[in-house]
């Protein structure tokens, strides 16, 4: 038994108009101060006003939201008792909204207990909406919640299948002002979600479609959106790609680029999309070297995305790797860890911790070639130098 879940997805021009059709009395908006400052809340609250829905803003969400912030949000939502919780922002705000709506239903729980072991039934009280302002995490179409335990300096992968948003609104007006660097970082996250979701051992025929289309869209539109933030078509298609990437990996699982990238991000504070995007070509090579199954899947993607039209599976798969590297280059992304400005001595000292973190991520187990300590250590070393994986 497995399942495929996703929200009602409202997309394209004027999607925020959907808010006028929403039935409810009170909305609790979860966001951050920067989104408020950028004026991105106003188009939403304006529509809520038209629909005669009262609203309150909780704008304390920080990047990689902490358990403390979620607890504070839980108290605020409990006082307000809304019938909608709306996450507006990037992955952090949307994840925070998911966690906060779970606390609305179960205020007695500590945020670190928001896992699949618990039952919440929050829809008896409120429904959940996600409005992304970046095109990357796909959080609007997944049930996952990533929070930070600031005491132990570690990321917690939480969430319940219940907290898939009811509605995701993809209005390009919300991403038009995204700066080029964030467009690049988050766009690399989309490519990772799409490629890793497609090749995950948890994938099924239900998850292949979104992964494949998201990859093709990102390869076609990401550079355009990066070079010209006002390119409406590119922005729209990247929003669609991000959500489909979420549908792909959220209903299967991400893979080795995510587990290694998470480890790098946790220890050296490299932004998430940049870190996972950096590891993607290396981990793809690692899989190609031993796994005919994954090589064939990469080849399918390469052919569908017009990256390769002839050649063996291995040649086509390697063409896809080269295309990912070229894309990162066009976006000014680092191609090696050395390029991220991490010092070699400091990095080498941390390799055991990087290995330990990567080894114990579920995403390391959902690939067709599961590395042990030794292989992970070599992947980390090669990625530092920018050396192609030859083992």
């Amino acid at each position, binding site marked *: 038994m497995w399942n495929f879940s996703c929200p009602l997805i409202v997309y394209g021009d004027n999607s925020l108009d959907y808010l006028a059709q929403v039935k409810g009395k009170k909305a609790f908006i979860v966001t951050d101060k920067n989104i408020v400052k950028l004026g991105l809340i106003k188009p939403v609250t304006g529509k809520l006003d038209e629909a005669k829905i009262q609203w309150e803003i909780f704008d304390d969400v920080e990047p990689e939201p902490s358990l403390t912030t979620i607890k504070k949000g839980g108290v605020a939502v409990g006082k307000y008792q809304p019938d909608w919780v709306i996450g507006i922002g990037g992955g952090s705000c949307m994840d925070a909204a998911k966690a906060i709506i779970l606390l609305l239903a179960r205020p007695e729980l500590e945020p670190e207990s928001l896992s699949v*072991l618990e039952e919440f039934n929050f829809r008896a009280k409120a429904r959940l909406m996600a409005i992304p302002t970046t095109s990357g995490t796909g959080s609007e179409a997944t049930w996952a919640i990533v929070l930070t335990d600031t005491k132990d300096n570690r990321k917690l992968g939480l969430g319940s*299948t219940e907290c898939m948003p009811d509605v995701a609104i993809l209005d390009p007006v919300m991403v038009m002002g995204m700066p080029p660097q964030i467009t690049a970082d988050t766009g690399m996250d989309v490519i990772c979600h799409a490629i890793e979701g497609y090749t995950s051992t948890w994938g099924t025929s239900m998850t292949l479609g979104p992964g494949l289309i998201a990859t093709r869209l990102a390869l076609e539109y990401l550079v355009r959106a990066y070079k010209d933030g006002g390119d409406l078509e590119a922005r729209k298609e990247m929003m669609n790609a991000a959500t489909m990437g979420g549908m792909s990996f959220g209903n299967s699982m991400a893979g080795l680029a995510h587990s290694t990238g998470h480890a790098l991000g946790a220890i050296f504070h490299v932004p998430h999309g940049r870190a996972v995007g950096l590891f993607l070509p290396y981990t793809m090579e690692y899989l190609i070297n031993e796994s005919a199954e994954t090589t064939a899947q990469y080849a399918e993607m390469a052919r569908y995305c017009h990256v390769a039209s002839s050649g063996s599976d291995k040649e086509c798969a390697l063409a896809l790797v080269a295309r990912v590297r070229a894309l990162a280059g066009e976006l000014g992304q680092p191609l090696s860890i050395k390029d991220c400005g991490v010092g070699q001595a400091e990095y080498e000292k941390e390799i055991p911790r990087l290995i330990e973190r990567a080894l*114990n991520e579920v995403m390391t187990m959902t690939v067709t070639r*599961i590395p042990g*300590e030794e292989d992970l250590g070599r992947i980390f070393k090669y990625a530092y130098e920018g050396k192609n994986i030859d083992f």
Partner: protein
Amino acid sequence: MVKYLSQEWCDLYKEEINKSKAYEEAAKTWEGDFYFITEPGGPVKEKGFMYVDLYHGKCRACEIVTDPNKYKPAFTLAAPYNIWKQIATKKLDSTKALITRQSKLTGDMAKIMRYTKAANELTNCTMLVPTEWLD
């Protein structure tokens, strides 16, 4: 072949865990014991309790328990027979079983999630036990 839910099965399982270098490496800091509970259903008429004590990459005990009050393990993992069979034969991923509520865990989920490689190696050990399934 040894029968599932028998002491002979437990003895072989313990042996396989203690032979596994991959498990030892992945679980070198793990401390925690379990009841693996087989819920009634199919060929299983009564709840079956298997006690497994795992410590620093080794299995210290693996036994069939008739009185569940005998131990107070840190974790319990319960599932019907057909789900255990699918997990043990790697037809169903143990994390997927948890997410879809086909199995139920009690205990510190966050701790378990930090040892996913060890969990995977434990399942690999299960595959090495020549099991006579009950159906």
